[in-house]
């Protein structure tokens, strides 16, 4: 399998503080990978560094070409959709406008219309509320909307930052089921950052564990789930 995203010696900084200390990892085309770690380990920073939203050094290659110093918006336009922590919903706009915004960099208006219909099929609740202000949706609905908005880009790679945050367990299961479906059916490579390690490991096929800005473990999600240390630290049994 070829690597869709390849990261070498990634270091990131907030002012004088170094948050990542030389990360190396890669995402295989079509894979669903999870990045696990405790609070402050550098998970969010890793995603932000990929999209050039934080000062960083090192090499990030997407589809074999270096991202270099591209701006956030031009990285997104390459087909990397990023669902940020807190979802980044345009709360004052309608659900449909949020979806339109997801496709704002695309030119094929017919494709956009049919993709919006496709999103409504994936997430029927969004169709019921398409004229509603997005801020009035529940947390779970807003997370669905955030995923749908990201998919409107027709991304090659989707980065999700703690999609389970603040959601009821049942809703998280639903959401993860949909992510799995998107990964299989739409062939979108997914990198999901999670604190809910158990669910993430069930869903993913690859996993990395990150501690204080370094990758300390990597491998098949099942092997990681069975690892003694991971079980104690992240799964709690």
């Amino acid at each position, binding site marked *: 399998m070829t690597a869709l995203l390849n990261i070498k010696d990634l270091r990131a900084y907030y002012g004088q503080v170094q948050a990542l200390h030389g990360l190396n990892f890669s995402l295989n085309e079509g894979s669903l990978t999870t990045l696990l770690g405790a609070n402050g380990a550098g998970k969010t920073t890793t995603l932000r560094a990929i999209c050039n*939203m934080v000062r960083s050094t090192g090499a990030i290659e997407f589809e074999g070409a270096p991202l270099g110093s591209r701006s956030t918006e031009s990285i997104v336009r390459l087909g990397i959709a990023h669902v940020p922590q807190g979802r*980044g919903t345009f709360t*004052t*706009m309608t659900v449909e406008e949020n979806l339109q915004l*997801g496709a704002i960099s695309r030119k094929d208006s017919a494709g956009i219309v049919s993709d919006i219909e496709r999103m409504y099929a994936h997430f029927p609740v969004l169709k019921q509320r398409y004229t509603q*202000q997005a*801020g009035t*949706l529940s*947390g779970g609905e807003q997370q669905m909307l955030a995923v749908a908005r990201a998919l409107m880009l027709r991304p090659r790679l989707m980065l999700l930052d703690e999609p389970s945050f603040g959601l009821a367990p049942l809703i998280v299961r639903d959401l993860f089921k949909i992510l799995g479906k998107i990964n299989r059916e739409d062939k979108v490579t997914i990198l999901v950052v999670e604190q809910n390690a158990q669910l993430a490991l069930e869903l993913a096929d690859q996993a990395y564990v990150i501690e204080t800005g370094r990758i300390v473990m990597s491998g098949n999600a099942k092997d990681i789930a069975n690892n003694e240390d991971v079980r104690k630290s992240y799964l709690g049994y």
Partner: protein
Amino acid sequence: MELFINQVLAGVATGAIYACMALAVVMIYQAIDHLNFAQGEMAMFSTFISWQLMQWGVPYWWAFLLTLIISFAGGILIERVLFKPLAKAPILTNVAGFIALFAIINSVAGLTWDFTIKQYPTPFGSSPFLGSQLISTHQAGMIGVTLLMLLGLYLFFQFTRIGLAMRAAAALPESARLVGINTSWMIALGWGMASAIGAVAGILIAPVVFLEPNMMGGVLVYGFAAAVLGGLTSPLGAVVGGFLVGVFENLAGTYIPGVGNELKLPIALALIITVLVFKPAGLFGRAIVKRV
């Protein structure tokens, strides 16, 4: 009664200008969170450009159109050269930038066209509108052009993709970048549009206040008052605020003893302070419905 209606209509007419200025102010405020103190001077300069074009023999409406295009480009240029580098600077740096811009434009206009008061033509004439003594054709024209422009802007922001992108960039810049919007250019575009809107205001008010480098000083204060009254985050509020301030100003000048023409301006300032004390978000300020 006739005096009252007359004053209200005249207030609506000047209110149209305040609405334009308030709208220009709000557009830039939405994009960069700062009040553009030089908005009035930019409008004045645009008006001089149109006057110069007409001096060179360009017909009124062509001069109008050309001025809008030049102002649009000029607004973008000012943002790129002066305010893009200040994007992350503290608020006072930006304020200093605006004041510098104010002084520079004012002086350059004075240097180029001198400070004598000039007549400015109106394409609408100044005869009574539809044979009624209540309002002149120029005042009716001011209201008409403003409403047309507002309608155009509304359609632009509601129904075009670029309008949607501009709204997104103003509401949540980071999320906007994450869907691939070049927010930096959206800000520049906002400056260009604000500058063109200001040009319309300047051109429409010039026949009334006459053309000179300080013509927009008072108008901008009313524009600020309108923007604050309507809510700095609401374009619709800016427009409604503009009309309200225009009417209020005229009625106060007519009916409150001792106010007259001279004390009209402090009324605008009093209005700004009153709104900021009692309802800081303004009439239409953003009330975000949120569930968490």
